């Protein structure tokens, strides 16, 4: 599903974020991405979502070489990658329903189909009753669940999460990771960047550790 081959990413202002990174992930795999702040976790995820392009090396996602992807095809790539952020990235002036519906609206789906899928996604994250609320009226954990519903509503084969529990207490974090496990069970490929080593250790999944932009440790495919 994901393949990095000797990937380098250099930023003009802060130097090398990733250097000579190579790894692979199979379809349907769930893995954690750990490492200290600035180790390159976010950069790695941004390369997969094509928010950025590598300075050198190849990134192949879902059989698609991202370096060869022309600009006008980027939106279609992003529709196949669900992205979850620490700060949720929700639209504060839109309802929960509208926020979750956004990927489907953007993809041009019909009204009925959107309603059906959005409610299914909200049901999965346990927020069906809050569809009319605005994100500001929700707690941090609920907001993150809206973000997760938005990431999976388009049924992407790959979901990326960047510190999804960074602002949440342990109980809420466990709940969120439980959600990820459920997606994993239905065949979604998940790559989750997190600081939460305690939780990572308690779950039987592959862990990829970065240090200074290099692969420090890979527990291997489980």
């Amino acid at each position: 599903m994901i393949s990095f081959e000797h990937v380098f990413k250099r930023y003009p202002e802060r130097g090398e974020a990733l250097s000579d990174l190579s790894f692979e992930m199979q379809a349907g795999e769930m893995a954690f991405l750990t490492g200290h702040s600035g180790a390159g976790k976010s950069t790695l995820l941004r390369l997969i979502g094509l928010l950025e392009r590598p300075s050198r090396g190849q990134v192949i996602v879902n059989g698609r070489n991202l370096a060869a992807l022309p600009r006008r095809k980027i939106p279609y790539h992003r529709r196949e990658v669900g992205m979850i952020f620490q700060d949720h990235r929700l639209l504060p002036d839109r309802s929960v329903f509208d926020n979750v519906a956004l990927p489907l609206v953007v993809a041009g789906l019909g009204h009925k189909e959107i309603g059906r899928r959005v409610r299914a996604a909200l049901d999965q994250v346990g927020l069906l009753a809050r569809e009319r609320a605005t994100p500001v009226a929700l707690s941090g954990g609920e907001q993150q669940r809206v973000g997760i519903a938005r990431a999976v509503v388009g049924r992407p084969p790959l979901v990326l999460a960047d510190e999804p529990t960074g602002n949440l207490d342990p109980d809420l974090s466990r709940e969120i990771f439980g959600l990820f496990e459920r997606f994993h069970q239905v065949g979604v490929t998940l790559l989750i960047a997190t600081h939460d080593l305690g939780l990572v250790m308690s779950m039987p999944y592959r862990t990829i550790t970065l240090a200074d932009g290099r692969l420090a440790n890979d527990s291997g495919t489980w």
Partner: protein
Amino acid sequence: MAKPKLNPRTAKRKPHRRSGPRLLDMPGLWANRHLQSAVATLGRLMRTPLPTGMTVAVIGISLALPAALFVVTENLRTMAGGWDQAAAISLFLKQDVDDAGAARLAEQLRARPELAQVHLISREQALNEFRALGGFEDALSQLKSNPLPAVLALYPQAASSAPERLQALHDELMTLPEADFARMDTLWLQRFQAILDLAQRAVLLLGGLLGVGVLLIVGNTIRLEILNRRIEIEIMELVGATGAFIRRPFLYAGAWYGLLGGLTAWFLVTIAVILLQQPVSRLATLYRSEFPLTGLGPLAMLVIFSGSVLFSLIGSWIAVNRHLRGAEPG
């Protein structure tokens, strides 16, 4: 177990059910998406009535100015058109020239190649005409003899109606022994027409200039809207919105601004024409004539609306192209 009878309507619909859009449906889907975007954009504009109203008002007033000047020049042109029938030169004959002498002179002048037509108004006719104007009946009946001279109304050939040729003809006519004096009637009319041409050119220039103004106003408004909605745009790009999808509502906003602005301009000019109708017709009555003020014709309206929409659309297009680069990975 008896099978329930199928409702023929649902039975008919059933084959249409499908999971995804088919190729044949694509044009409909495309048009539908545009319609949705257009309506949604109008809805968004209506939700913020004050800023929208202000932008629309600025466009409307900008366009009402040249439109109003156009209405003024058009009306003046209509008015001047009524005077085209006037003679170029009126030759007033001396009192002692009788009607027979006047007719002889008219005959001589008709032979001149530069004159298309010579119309004789005899002393008798002049008196009758004067009487018909009314109010002078009593005064005229007091007079023992007809105080009015015979007049020859001269209509030159088109080729000879240039001001300097008319002037030469006028000077020559003055030397005739029968002539009392000659008056050039249409020279001022020609000058007036030239001024109208100038004014109409100025209207065009002003229209073009204010059109560019509209372009800048709309461009700036759209630019601010894009900046205000930066975060929303970023998130939409994140979840896979195409550049076209993101640009579309801003372009429609531009088109709506143009359409509403054009409507406002039309409304303002029409109100002005209605308000001026009465004073103008009263003025016309004082000049013993009738003059119905005309507003914007269908062609002028079409020009205003399409011009307004076009300039607004160009303005928003420029803003969108400058500020929305589409999903661009760093």
